[in-house]
C-alpha cells in the first residue's frame, strides 16, 4: 500500500472511533500527570507501567482469553502490586527510594518479558499479540477496546475534576493541607491510583516502556504556558489529545512504526515548541522583571 492508500483505509475503517478512544486516553493521562509533575513525583507511574507486562501475560495465560478488558484487569492488578512492593521496600528495608523504584521496575519488566517470550515460544495461539504491549499498537484495537479505554479515561477525568480542590491543595502545599486536617495520605494514594489507572489504560497505545511519557511530557509542555493549575490542566489535555492523535495517524501511515514512540515524539515536539515560545517571551521582557 502507498501512504495515500493507508491514509484512505485509515479514514474508512472504524479507525476514527479507535482514534477517539486513544485521544480520550491522551487527554486523561495528561491531566492526571499534571499532579505528578507538580509534586515532583513524575516517575511514580514508571514502575507501574513496566509492571503491567507480567499482569497482562498472567491474565492471558490463566484465562486463555485475549479481550482487552481481561488483559487490562491483569495489568491493573500487577501495577497496583508493584506500587505496593515499592512502598513495602521503602518501609521495611534499608534500600533507598530511587533504588526501590528501579528494582521493582526492572524485575517486573523482566518477569513480563520472560512470561511473554515463554508463551510465544510454546506457540500458544494469540500470544504473539501480547508483544504489542511492549511498544504500543493501536492497529489491533477493536471498537469495544477503544470504548473501554475511553470509558476509563472519562471516569478518571471525572474523579480528578470532582476532587480538584483536594488534589490542588495536596499538590501545592501538602504541609498546609495536613495541618488543616485534610487526609493527605489518602488524597496522595488516590492520585497515585488514578495515575496508575491511566498508565494501564494507555499501555495498549504507548506500550509499557514509553507510557510514562504520556503522563509526563504533556504536563511539562503545559507548564511552559501558565502558572495556574486550571489552564495548565487544559493545555496538558490539549497536548495529550493532539499528540496521541498524531501518533495514531503516523503509526498507521508509516509501515512498522509502533504507536508508542510516535505519540512520544509528537508530544516531545509540542514540549520543545512550548519551551521555545516561553524562552523567547521571557527574553524579550526587560531584565530585572521576574517571570509571570
Amino acid at each position, binding site marked *: 500500500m502507498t501512504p495515500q492508500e493507508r491514509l484512505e483505509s485509515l479514514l474508512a475503517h472504524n479507525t476514527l472511533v479507535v482514534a477517539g478512544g486513544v485521544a480520550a486516553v491522551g487527554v486523561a493521562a495528561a491531566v492526571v500527570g499534571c499532579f505528578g509533575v507538580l509534586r515532583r513525583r513524575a516517575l511514580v507511574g514508571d514502575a507501574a507501567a513496566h509492571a503491567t507486562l507480567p499482569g497482562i501475560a498472567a491474565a492471558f495465560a490463566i484465562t486463555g482469553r485475549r479481550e482487552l478488558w481481561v488483559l487490562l484487569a491483569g495489568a491493573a492488578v500487577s501495577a497496583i502490586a508493584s506500587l505496593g512492593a515499592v512502598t513495602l521496600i521503602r518501609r521495611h*528495608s534499608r534500600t533507598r527510594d530511587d533504588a526501590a523504584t528501579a528494582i521493582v521496575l526492572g524485575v517486573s519488566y523482566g*518477569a513480563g518479558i520472560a*512470561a511473554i517470550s515463554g508463551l510465544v515460544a510454546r506457540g500458544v495461539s494469540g500470544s504473539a499479540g501480547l508483544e504489542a504491549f511492549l511498544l504500543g499498537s493501536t492497529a489491533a484495537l477493536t471498537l469495544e477496546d477503544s470504548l473501554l479505554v475511553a470509558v476509563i479515561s472519562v471516569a478518571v477525568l471525572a474523579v480528578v475534576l470532582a476532587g480538584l480542590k483536594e488534589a490542588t491543595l495536596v499538590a501545592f502545599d501538602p504541609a498546609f493541607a495536613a495541618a488543616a486536617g485534610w487526609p493527605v495520605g489518602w488524597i496522595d494514594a488516590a492520585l497515585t491510583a488514578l495515575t496508575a489507572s491511566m498508565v494501564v489504560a494507555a499501555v495498549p497505545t504507548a506500550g509499557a516502556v514509553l507510557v510514562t511519557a504520556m503522563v509526563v511530557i504533556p504536563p511539562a509542555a503545559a507548564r511552559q504556558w501558565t502558572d495556574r493549575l486550571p489552564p495548565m490542566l487544559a493545555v496538558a489535555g490539549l497536548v495529550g489529545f493532539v499528540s496521541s492523535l498524531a501518533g495514531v495517524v503516523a503509526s498507521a501511515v508509516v509501515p512498522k512504526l509502533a504507536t508508542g514512540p510516535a505519540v512520544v515524539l509528537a508530544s*516531545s515536539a509540542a514540549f520543545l515548541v512550548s519551551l521555545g515560545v516561553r524562552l523567547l517571551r521571557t527574553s524579550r521582557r526587560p531584565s530585572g522583571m521576574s517571570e509571570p
Partner: protein
Amino acid sequence: MMVWPMVVAAVVSAVCAVVGTMLVVRRMSLLGDAISHGVLPGIVVAVLAGGRPGGMLSTVGAVAAAMLTVWAAEAIRRRARLSEDAAAGVVFTTFFAAGVVLISLYASRVDLDPGCVLHGILELAAADTVPLLGVAVPRAVVNGLVALAVVTVFLAATWPAQLFAAFDADAARVVGVPVGFATTGLLAMTAVATVASFEAVGAVLVVAMLVVPAATAELLFRSLGRVMAAAVAIAVAAAVAGYLAAWRWNTTAAGMIAIVLGLCYLVAVLAAADGGVIPRLAGKGWLAWRVACEDVLAAAWRREEAGGNAAATPAGLLFRLAGSWLRLRGKVEGPTDRLALTDAGRGEAETIVRSHRLWEAWLGRNVELPVDHLHPPAEWVEHYLGADVRRRIEEEVGPASSDPHGREIPTERG
C-alpha cells in the same frame, strides 16, 4: 544448553554490577535507568554508520548520547521550571522513542532487531565470534571484558574521589575533590556498561542488572568494597542461574536473569542478618516471649507474697504458652490460672520483682511522679535491668528499703 551465551551473560552482568554499585550508593539509580534508555539513539546511529551493536563506534555513540541525555535533562530542569525527575522523564522517553523510530524507519538497513532493544538476544550475541588464541570467542565476551577493564581502571583511578563523593559530595566539593569529573565519568561508564550489555539483554533490562545486585549486596554488607565484590558475585551467579532457567523453560534469558536477581533481593530483604525482616521479627518475638515468661513468674511471686489472694496468672494465649513452658522447665506448678512457684523458679521471679520495685523506688525518689504512675514504667523496665544497675540503684535508694507502695524490695540472690 550452550556455554558461551552463559559466559556472555556473566561478563556483562559483572560490568553492570560494578557500575551499578556506584550508582546505587550515590542515589543515582534512576539516572542509570534514564541513561540506559537514552543511549539507544546513539547506538542506532552508530550502527547505521556501519558500526557493530557492541563495538567501538557504538560505544562512542552511546557515551555521546548519554552525555546528551544528562545535559538535556539538566538544561530542561533549569530553563523549563521542571523538577529533576520530570526533566529526566521528558528526555529519556524522547531519546528512547527516537531510537525506536530510527530502527523502524531504517529497518531494512539496520542490523538491529526491535526485540534486541527490548530484551536482547543472548544466543545471537554469542553466535558472532572472533578467533582469540585459536578459540572462537563471542565478540560480546571480548567487548564485555574490555568494558570491564575500562570501568575497573576508571574507578580505580578515581577511587578516592568516588568514595568521597559517594558519602559526602558537599564536603568533597569543599575540599576540592573533583566531584563533577567523578560523576560525569560514572555516567559515561554507565553508558559503556549499557552498550556492552545491549545485545545480550537490551536497553530496558539493563536497569535491573545495574541496580538489583548492588541493592542486594548493600543489605548484606556495610563496606563499599565488600558491597561491590558481593554485587559482582550475585550478578554472575544470577546470570548463570537465569540462563539455565531460561534454557529449561524455553524463554528469554534476560527476563529470567532479572527474575533471579529479584529473588536474590527478596531473600536479602527477608533474611539479611543485619536489618532483615525475619531477624527483626524474630528479635521482637523473642523479646515478647521473654517478657511473657517473666511476667508469669513475677505474678506467681506476688501471689505467694500476698498469701495466695492476689491476682491470677495473666490471661491470654501467649501467657498460657509461657506458663506451660515454665512448667515444663520445672519453674512453676499447680493449676494453669493460678501457677505457683517451685524452688527452682523462685530466684528468677524474685529478681524480676526486685528490679520492678527498685525502679519504682528510684522513680519515686528522683522523678516527681504520683505514686499511682510508678507502676507502668516499672512494668517495662523490670525486664531490662541487669545486676549491676540493680546494685547501683540500691546504693542510691538505700539498702533493704521498701518501694513507694510500702512493699518490701527483695534482696539480691546468688
